[in-house]
Each structure stands twice: as structure tokens, then as C-alpha cells.
């Protein structure tokens, strides 16, 4: 039994099944990301004045990643066009670049993630705040990456070395603004803090504040989409390549559908980039 219109378009709608299916699916994806975007706006609007970070992320890296993803979108559409013109070899080449771009994107993203996880903020008992990267070589205690943020320090003399800067009092409005603004780069120095002085600390993981929370969820979900999209493109590109010989139209349709998904992933990033990195 063959399902009708799986390959050839249905005359009255002009569409083949998977095309309708993928657009419906993308519609639901729009609502999924829409909910997250509206959460973002809400958290931002409701944030206490001066607590929403600005330019916290690495803009050059983000720009670079945006261009990588745009590049992959071009190769996807070109690979589909090549197939339409019957040029399988060219399709293969373009799509290989797509997959490489996806890998590059994920590589850069994980570098950025790691950077945030290495970045800590220590609130000291005297009201000062120390903010920066922990030097794990020089520190005498283990500093956790993950909640709960508790340090075991049997000796009572544990020391943590941080490359960063110190803000004299958290209530100091300027210091606070400094912490929230990624553009102010106060001189980084090596700071030593005694574990016994620490009141509270965390790294810049999702638990840090609502900004990092929504940042990780949005980009994490997006990364999952990148991964999924790349996987599908790869499977069509490699293991399923034989279909091209048997049923080129079906194969082209698959490439088109996976391409539509990929463009959507690109589209989401086009909005994520300014919203998270720039605004």
C-alpha cells in the first residue's frame, strides 16, 4: 500500500505530504520558541532596574557563529538547487559544508558555555564581591561547577584564586552597574579569597540569575535543534544516499524538507543573536 501524494504533489493543494507536515511542525516550533521569547521579554521587563546584564557574552564569537550558521543556510539551499538540476556530486559537496558548519557552530557554542561555567561571582561576608575566572591550579580547594555551591574545606584555611576584579560593596551602585555591563572591563588582577570569607557564590550557569537562565535554555534548545537538524541532513546525505538512484524525486523532497527545518533553525538564531548578545 502506497500513501498517495508522498512524492508527487496533490493537484488541488499543489503540495506533497511532507511539505505540509514540515510546515505544520515549524508552526508549532514557532509557538515553542515564541513562548520562550515571551518569557525572555517578561523576565527582562520585570527585572529590578539595573539588574539585567548587558553585553555579557562574547560578541565577536557570537557574530562569527551567526555567519557560520548563515553560511550553512546558503549551502543547504544550494545543495537542494543542485539536486533539482540533477547534480548529485555538487549536492554532496554543499551539504558536506553544511555539516561542517553545524559542527563549527556547536564547537564555538560549547567554548562559550564552558567560559560561562568557569566564570564565578563570590559574595563575601564583608559585602564585597569578587567576580572572575577561578584559577584551579592555584586554588587549594575544589570549586564546584554545579549546584549546590558548597565548598568542603576541612582545614578551614582553603584559598581560592580568581582572575578578575573586586567590587567594594554590592550596594555600591556603580559596582553593581559594572557587574551588569560587559563593556566595562576593569583591570583584571589575581585575587585571593579565603573560603571562610565567602558568604555565597555561584558560577554563571543557569542558576546565576534570570538572564543566564533564559540564555542557557534558549541557546540550549536551539543547540538541540542544530544537532537534530544536522543529524537528519547527515543521514540523508550518507546512509540514505542510495534513494537518489531509485527515486530522485523522493530524495529531493527529503532534502527540501530537511532544508526547511535547517533554515528555521537559522531563523531562530537570527533573532537569538541580537536578543541575547547585543540588547
Amino acid at each position, binding site marked *: *500500500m502506497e*500513501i*498517495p*501524494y*508522498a512524492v508527487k504533489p*496533490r493537484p488541488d*493543494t499543489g*503540495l506533497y*505530504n511532507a511539505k*505540509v*507536515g514540515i510546515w*505544520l*511542525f515549524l*508552526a*508549532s*516550533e514557532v*509557538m*515553542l*520558541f*515564541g*513562548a*520562550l521569547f515571551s*518569557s525572555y521579554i*517578561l*523576565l527582562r521587563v*520585570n*527585572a*529590578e532596574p539595573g*539588574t539585567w546584564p548587558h553585553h555579557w557574552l562574547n560578541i565577536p564569537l557570537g557574530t562569527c557563529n551567526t555567519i557560520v550558521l548563515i553560511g550553512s543556510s546558503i549551502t543547504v539551499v544550494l545543495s537542494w538547487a543542485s539536486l533539482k538540476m540533477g547534480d548529485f556530486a555538487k549536492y554532496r559537496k554543499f551539504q558536506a559544508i553544511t555539516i561542517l558548519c553545524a559542527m563549527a557552530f556547536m564547537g564555538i557554542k560549547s567554548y562559550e558555555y564552558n567560559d560561562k561555567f568557569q566564570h564565578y561571582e563570590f559574595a563575601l561576608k564583608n559585602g564585597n564581591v569578587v567576580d572572575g575566572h577561578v584559577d584551579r591550579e592555584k586554588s587549594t580547594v575544589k570549586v564546584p561547577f554545579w*549546584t*549546590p555551591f558548597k565548598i568542603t574545606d576541612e582545614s578551614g584555611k582553603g584559598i581560592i584564586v580568581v582572575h578578575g576584579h573586586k567590587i567594594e560593596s554590592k550596594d555600591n551602585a556603580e559596582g553593581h552597574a559594572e557587574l551588569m555591563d560587559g563593556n566595562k572591563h576593569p583591570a583584571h588582577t589575581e585575587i585571593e579569597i579565603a573560603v571562610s570569607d565567602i558568604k555565597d557564590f*555561584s558560577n554563571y*550557569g*543557569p*542558576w*546565576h*540569575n*534570570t538572564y543566564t*537562565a*533564559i540564555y542557557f*535554555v534558549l541557546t540550549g*534548545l536551539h543547540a538541540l535543534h542544530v544537532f537534530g537538524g544536522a543529524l537528519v541532513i547527515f543521514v540523508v546525505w550518507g546512509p540514505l544516499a542510495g534513494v537518489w538512484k531509485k527515486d530522485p524525486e523522493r530524495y529531493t523532497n527529503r532534502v527540501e524538507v530537511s532544508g526547511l527545518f535547517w533554515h528555521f533553525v537559522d531563523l531562530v538564531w537570527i533573532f537569538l543573536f541580537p536578543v541575547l548578545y547585543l540588547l
Partner: protein
Amino acid sequence: MQASTHTDSHSHDAHGGHDHHEPGFWQKYIFSTDHKVIGIQYGITSLMFLFFGFLLMLCMRWQMANPGQPIPVVGSWLHAILGDEMVAKDAQGRVGVMMPDLYNSFGAMHGTIMVFLAIVPLAFGAFGNFVTPLQIGACDMTFPRINMVSYQCYFLGGVLMLASFFIPGGAAKSGWTSYSPLATVAGGGHHPDGQTFWLIGMVALITSSLLGAVNFITTIIQLRAKGLTWMRMPFFVWAQFVTGFLLLLAFPPLEAAGVLQLADNMLGTSFFLPTGLVVSGQPMHVSGGGSPLLWQHLFWFLGHPEVYVLILPGMGIVTEIIANNTRKPIWGYRSLVYAIMGIGFLSFIVWAHHMYLTGMGTKISTFFQTTTMMISIPSVIILTALFISLWGGSMRFNTPMLFALAFLPMFGVGGLTGLPLGFNASDIFLHDTYYVIAHFHYVVAPGTIFALFAGIYYWYPKATGRMMNEFWGRVHFGLSFIFMNLVFMPMFIQGMEGMSRRMYDGGASYAAAAGSTGLGAFVIGLNKNITYAAFGLGLAQIPFIINFFWSITKGKKVTSDNPWHATTLEWQTPTPPPHGNFDKEIEVFRGPYEYSVPGAPTDYTTQNEPDKQAPLTHGNPVRS
């Protein structure tokens, strides 16, 4: 479903590739991609969940009627399974008293199971899968394998939900609405807790619904038989189509919200947790800055469309059965179609009527109550059209028809009592009282469940080739009708008197505490009546359950493929329909409800009847 003939085929191999190979048992019944088998899988699973959800509620009802009394028999089983934390001893040392935590777990899981694991899968998954492709003359769904995955996701979600009863701390206990911050703190330090399971289970269920929705909509758009134009589609198909869109577009925000709440519970983020929370006297160690209202918005953005997901397929079923058993076309078919589209559209912009008392300003609550009143109009139109369809009919009162007819006033009661809730000013008093409980149970229990029963009796012969027993069907109907009303009608009184919902002791301690202004003994006493009626309702299902299984092999055999003399295409297949459904390609020439066409040889003219043999009327009589 003719299990007897095929169960002995080779269950060990599953080489699906060879066309001439008889598929094995596993492939035929468990990993099937045939929409009918998947429909039946959905049906059986969801009926079991329906029953299970009801059993949970029976335990709760016992506790409400007899606070602090051990539950007979079942209490000690529960104790054996769930331990001292959840089930305790009473003053006399008798074991089996439900603890508040368990009551809250059961309450949350009753709501969740009924909505997401019973009614939606039954109405959309089972009936949608089994009937829709047949009614549009398709050989299957557009994406059969995705259809199978959809069922598997549903099954997985169900298993996760059930498993959560057995983990330390028990199942989710923050209501089916899972409001933060309670949902985050109620676990009492267990990680993962019941709420975690609930959230992950919900993600699985949502995935299932999304896959199903994509599949249904695509199928209806792409695989309609030749000649089956939009305005010739049976109303049931329209209902499934709109329902598909509701699921497709309303569920993702809850999925997003679920992920955020999961992060709050597991990762220590603060999406829904404001700064300065003090729980049990201790400041909560979170970054803060979030908003509990955000959760409510995202939840109800799904929540309201979801309630129409619960009702629209039911309305579709009822329409089919009323047309069939009045032997006349549905009156105002077009207005039905426009009304259902209107409901679908409006249902996305009324959600905050569940949140009137969260400190909403005048403008916003005016907006949402206006849309809420607007959405009641298409419901009135649908009901009116169905009522008017009865006029001039030649009604036969078989079991499906009885249930379908009863649906009308039952939905009427439920829908009408939505109005005082929809006005924000009257909701100030009625909010979160038993009036709300009564309102929505009238729409989903004697409403949707009756519609689903009607559908089961109606399409049973198509699925099995045998009829269900008519006498026991009527007994089932009569008793269910009486007990349903005895269960839910008194809840209006309780609500109007001011009794709050989600009360472990049914409000008894409130009554005892407050002297003259608290709840009177009469109101508390009603708890007992309701509980007895609920047990009666349970007993009333016994004839149904026996009838259901007995008829598979012993029911009266149908002698025709179209035992109800119906017009729609599902009756044009062999019975039960084989893989691929139709013997030959089918073409449609007319509207869905051409009953009693003047001058036609029979009182039903099937949709695929070419014009030569019966006068061709143009679609349906429109309101003239």
C-alpha cells in the same frame, strides 16, 4: 480486532520488507503502523487510564466523605504499596488512612490522567485515528510511522506518570495546573520528585500530541477522497481538524513552560520564583527575579484551548450520531463549521479568565472576559443547530443515540455554568469553589464521556464486526445518567455556599472552625451523598466493561458493512476494514448527511453515491 484468527501467526520474525509475508503478531498489533490498530491501541490504553483516574478519585471521595477514616480494603493495599509516609493509621490503629500528601497527589494525577492520558487520547487518538481516515476515504494516515511513534510517546508518558507514584515523595501534588512556586517546593527536598516525573511525562505526552496533530492535519488536507470538498466533510472530521490545530499551536508553550519549570526544580534557576521567598521559615536559596504569573500564563495558554480539545471531538461524534439516528441532515451544517472554526480561533485569546484573581487590572480582565463571552456564542450556535436538527427527524433510540442525546443538556449545564465564571465580577466569589469543579465536570464527564461512550457503541461494529449488546447498553446509559447527575449536581450547591476545591477533608475542618459563618453541616453532608453516587457510577460501568469484552467474540454479528444505514464513507469499507481500508478508489459526490433525500430509494444516500441513482442535492440544506 478479530484477534482469534491471527494470534497464532509467527510472532518471532518481523521481516517487514517482503510484501507477501504475513506480518507477525508484534508487527500486527504492537508495532503496527495501521491507523486502525493504532486507534484501537489508543482506545484500550486510554480507557484503562480513564478507569484508573476514576479509581484515584474514588479513594479521594472516600476521604472527603469520611475524613480520617481508613479506606476499606483498598486502604491496606495502598499502605502496602506506598508505605507509612502516604497512608497512615487512624486513632484505633486501623491502617489505610490517606494522608494529605497522598490526597494532593491523587488529585493532581486524577486531573492529569483524565485530561492528558484518558480523554484526549480517547477522543483524538483513538476516535481520530480509527475514524478520520475512513471518513475521508483515505487508505491510512499520511505518516504511518510517525503515527506509531506518537502512540509510543503517549505510552511512555503514561508509564512515567504511573511510575511517579512509587518514587520517594510520591507523585506530583500541586494540582494538574502545577502552579509555581508550589510545584518547585512541594517535593520536600526529594530530587527528582514527583513533579519532575510529571514534567518529563508531560514533555512525552506533548510530543505525542504534536506528532499526532501534524499527522491528522496533513491527512485531512492531503488524503481526502476525490470529490470530498471541505464543505462535504463530515462534521466529525472538521472537529478533528480544528482539534489538531489547537493541539499543534497551544501545546508548545506548555512544553516550553515545562522545560523552564524543570530547570527551576532541578537546576536551581528562578524562572517562576521571585526574590525573597521564605519557605518553612528559611529564605530559599535561589537567585530570584522570576514570576509565578509567567507560569500561569504559559499554562493557561495551553489550558484553555485544551478544554476545547476535550469537547470538540465529542461534539463531532454527537453530530454524526444525531444525523444518523434522526434520519435527517444536520440543520445548519455550514454554521456548525463556522462556529467550530470560531471556537478554535477564539480559544487562544481567552486564557486569562482562569487568572482573574491574580491582581489583574481592569483593562485586561475586561479584554479577557469579553473574549470569553464571545466564545460562548459559537458554542450556543453549535448546540442550537444540534437541537434544531432533532426537529422533523424520525428518531430511533439506540444506545449511541441515547448517549448522544444526553450529551446535549449535560453540555448545556456545563456550558451555561461557564457564564457566571466568565464574568470576572461573579468569578470573584465563585473562583476555586466546587462550582468550578461542577462546571467543568459537567462538560467533560457527562458531556465528553457520554459522547465517547456514544462513539464506542456506534463504531464498535465497524471495528469488530459485531454489535454491542443493546439491552446492557441501555442499562449502562440509564445508570450512568442518573449517577453522573447525582455526583456533580450537588457540587453546585457546595460551590455556591462557598466550599473551596482541593480540600483533603472535604471542608470539614473549615466547617468546624468557624461557627456561624463557615460551611453548614448540610454542605459538608453532601460530600457523603456525592461519594455514594460516585461509587454507584463506578458500578454502573460494570455492564459496559463486560459488554465491551464479551461482544468482541460473542456479540451479534453484523450482516452488512453498514449496519446503521449511515451515509459517511467509513461504512463503505469491508468490516472490519483491512489494511488499506477501501477495496477500490472511492469518489464522493455529495454532502455528509444526505438522509431522507426526497425521491431517493432509501432513506440514506451515501456520500459516494453517483448522481444517476439518487437526485443530487447541493450539499446540505443551508439555513434558508
